[in-house]
């Protein structure tokens, strides 16, 4: 059997999730490429392809109408499209600007009016094309990505958790951020990252978005009552990685 053809593409993003794919270490990466044929991956090779692809990893959010045609052509050529990383899967950090009006001046100053900076609302790529599976996170969890690939190599639907980060914190016996006077969003954040942030004393920012049915009113209540947030800050807290989710569920 020929090896499945895998390609990486990027849109509005930092390409950090693609860099994660090169971070498996030599031995694991070399074993991996025994099983997949990477045909386009600009972080690691110069070749490009116009051939059909088995698995397309698409990084970055859909934030310019001009990108739609390229997304559609990827979709046409790819048997499986994976929204790769949070920008692609949920809008990601780019979606912060969806709630601002002066971001161009703020970021680019006097160059703000340059035409190539024109963009629309940042959205997940699912706003433009059908997505088969999502690899969540900012960045992705490279081990989860491996499992997604392994599952697909065997024709098995990947297992993506719909339980929150609290489960993974407890499994590794992390001291709860709230017990240390801090805040956290692990109660509503989709797990699958293995909860590294709280383990190192950093609150969960829900970089993988929320579980399917997050209890957002309770989140705000806990942020106010237990972490001392103002109501406004509590309401805004959830926006960094989940603005799109909230729009969809509200």
């Amino acid at each position, binding site marked *: 059997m020929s090896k499945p053809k895998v390609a990486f593409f990027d849109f509005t993003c930092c390409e950090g999730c693609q860099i994660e794919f090169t971070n498996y270490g030599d031995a694991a990466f070399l074993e991996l490429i025994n099983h997949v044929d990477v045909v386009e991956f600009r972080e690691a090779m110069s070749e490009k392809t116009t051939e059909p692809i088995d698995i397309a990893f698409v990084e970055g959010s859909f934030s310019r109408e001009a990108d739609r045609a390229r997304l559609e052509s990827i979709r046409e050529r790819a048997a499986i499209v994976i929204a790769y990383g949070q920008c692609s899967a949920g809008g990601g950090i780019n979606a912060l600007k969806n709630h601002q009006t002066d971001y161009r001046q703020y970021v680019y100053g006097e160059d703000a009016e340059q035409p190539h900076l024109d963009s629309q609302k940042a959205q997940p790529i699912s706003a433009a094309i059908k997505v088969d599976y999502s690899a969540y996170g900012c960045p992705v969890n490279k081990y989860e990505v491996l499992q997604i690939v392994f599952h697909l190599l065997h024709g098995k639907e990947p297992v993506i958790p719909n339980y929150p980060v609290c489960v993974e914190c407890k499994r590794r016996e992390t001291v709860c951020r709230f017990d240390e006077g801090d805040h956290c969003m692990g109660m509503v954040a989709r797990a699958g990252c293995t909860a590294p942030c709280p383990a190192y004393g950093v609150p969960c920012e829900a970089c993988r978005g929320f579980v399917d049915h997050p209890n957002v009113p309770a989140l705000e209540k*806990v942020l106010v009552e237990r972490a001392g947030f103002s109501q406004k800050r509590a309401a805004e807290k959830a926006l960094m990685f989940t603005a799109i989710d909230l729009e969809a569920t509200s």
Partner: protein
Amino acid sequence: MTASFIRSDDFAAFVTAIIEAGPVYGPVAKRSRFAFARLETPEELRLDYDVSILPPKKLFFPPAQDLLQFDEAGFRAPLEPTEKVLLGVHFYDVKAIDQTDLLFSERNYDINYMAHRETTTIVAANIQTVSSRAFFASVGADVQPKGHDAFLTAIAGGYVLETLTERGGALLKFGAFQPATDAQLKEAAAVNAAVLEQCPEKLEHGTEAIAAKVRAAFKNEAMWTAMAADCFSCGTCNTVCPTCYCFDVHDTWNVDQTSGQRTRYWDGCLTEDFAKCSLGEGACENFREERATRFRHRMMRKATYLNEKLGGPACVGCGRCSAGCTADIADPVRIINQIMAS
């Protein structure tokens, strides 16, 4: 059964000796809290801990455990338990381990738990610091802790070690123990009795009255919905519970794509997908779709469903769920007292 005494000055040498003899797990500090961990030195041991983040059940029922491993040649169980000492278990956790011992061995004997359990010497220890949400004195008060091999109580000038089994007795050779005097035994009994007066929380009713009324409240949907309004379905109350033992199983492949493992992971009935089945063509049936039904199921499990089998409630009053719940709605004392008052 024997009762021995060891002076405080000799205690560190005893712990060092058992560490040298084999793995010893005990409570150690973890940031602002405590956790059971393999001891490297006697200084790490914190017998003054209030409660560990996770109960010691993790040693027998790890958060992730391979049930089998497979490759092209076949499959096998990777079970290789080692003899070990679990030191410093509070009596409520002893009660909980006794429950999971029963639940994993009855009907279908689960070797993956039992092998680790049967190779463990459990040394219980008196509670020196009572945690902020404990209610161990008033829950299942007539159920005695059992199943441990020895019980260590800190008294003036040292420790009384009561050994209850051969395994427990085998520890005596590692330290400068001498027979305990009647006065020392009396002091130890007083220490263990006194701690029962110090719980910050208290159930107001007996096991049977609670079981009957909680069970009867099943259909009070408005009450459960109100109680679960702030529930995140995060499963923390399950995951930190010493008597919870549900799990999920997943198969994964290794990078060679031919070998892999079947692994069980802690699961919790509060999480959304716990009772969800696939019906095909994208359709699902979730037998506990509403948060309140999952919240209720946990309370039924803790207060009524298992009582007959266990001889008491499936709750030992450690207070881990109460303290671990970020929304602070999981506290069995508040839930049960509210039901009893209704």
